[in-house]
């Protein structure tokens, strides 16, 4: 895929994700957002917090990579590295396979408030602003360290795709987790 089409698609995906969180999660109170589907499953807020932790790591690296020395390489095809392909396969939103998360990325049973949603939306603003820089950068440069093994590096383009696919996966999970409001009586 050429870089321009690639970026257009990712930008649309990012906008859709942000709109989804505004519509589906922002208006809800903490009780509904903290509802767990079962004892060990993540609540919607835990899903979003997990994504926030990825944004906190990857966004600064992406910003740095995309704003360093604009080179306008032209509309080259986007290429993938071995680690990029592997990472994308793991987070594939259409795959039902579950994976164990890294301990420091696992927010299970942390006390979360609706501030998590606000933080997520701020990250998305930052992420969307990257698309202004991206057309001038070489998306095939290997300069984004992999979070769990920082000696490995992903290409800039595939790292961006990874971040959005990972978000897509957990936003779907968050939609399943959030409780439908119902009345209950306590006596």
């Amino acid at each position, binding site marked *: 895929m050429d870089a321009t089409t690639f970026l257009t698609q990712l930008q649309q995906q990012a906008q859709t994700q942000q709109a989804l969180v505004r519509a589906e999660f922002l208006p809800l*109170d903490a009780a509904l957002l903290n509802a767990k589907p079962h004892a060990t499953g993540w609540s919607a807020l835990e899903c979003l917090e997990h994504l926030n932790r990825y944004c906190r790591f990857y966004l600064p690296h992406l910003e740095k990579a995309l704003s360093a020395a604009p080179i306008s390489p032209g509309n080259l095809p986007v290429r993938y590295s071995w680690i990029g392909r592997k990472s994308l396969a793991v987070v594939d939103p259409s795959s039902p396979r579950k994976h164990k998360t890294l301990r420091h990325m696992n927010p299970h049973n942390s006390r979360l408030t609706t501030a998590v949603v606000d933080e997520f939306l701020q990250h998305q603003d930052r992420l969307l602003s990257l698309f202004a820089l991206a057309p001038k950068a070489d998306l095939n440069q290997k300069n984004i360290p992999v979070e769990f093994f920082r000696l490995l590096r992903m290409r800039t383009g595939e790292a961006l795709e990874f971040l959005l696919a990972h978000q897509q996966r957990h936003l779907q999970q968050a939609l399943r987790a959030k409780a439908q409001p119902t009345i209950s009586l306590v*006596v």
Partner: protein
Amino acid sequence: MPVFPKTALNLTPMLADLLQQVPLFTPDDVEAFLPLWKKRLTVPRGDFLIREGQVEQHLYFVESGALRLYLPTAHEEICVGFAYPNTLITAFPSLVTQTPSQYCIQALRRSELVAITKADFDQIQEKRPIFGKFWRMELEKALVGKIEREVDLQLPDPAQRLERLLRRSPHIFQLVPRKYIASYLRMTPETLSRIM
């Protein structure tokens, strides 16, 4: 889309939302019911909705915050239930028997509620039997919960009691401080933190 009177919807938008989703009710039922929730109150953290010795006259709907229902005894305060947004709460024995309550309802955080009087609620159940059915269904769910809890309390192993609560109501661990959950589970806060 049914049109609801602006005032009732604006005064109790959360309750209105929930009631519109109850399949039993027609828009007309909801329209008749909402204006009966006349009292709106904010209870600061630590204050009481009802104290021991008062006679309960209201059914409350929680819009925000968290509250606990507890029995004060000489040695400890025994938590018997918690309320949070979208919960209906009342000191039930007192409401039904119109005798002084043995229980207290205290806000664990600043809580906003709306209330309907027992008289108004009884009356609409007479006038519109669907509300009698709604109330019966809520009572059935509450009774099932109480039976579950009765079983919980017979289990000698604290870990088992905790596991059942985690399965039944995982959300309360996000909404209620641990020391009250420990009391609800009839164990010390130390035991709870050891097995959690």
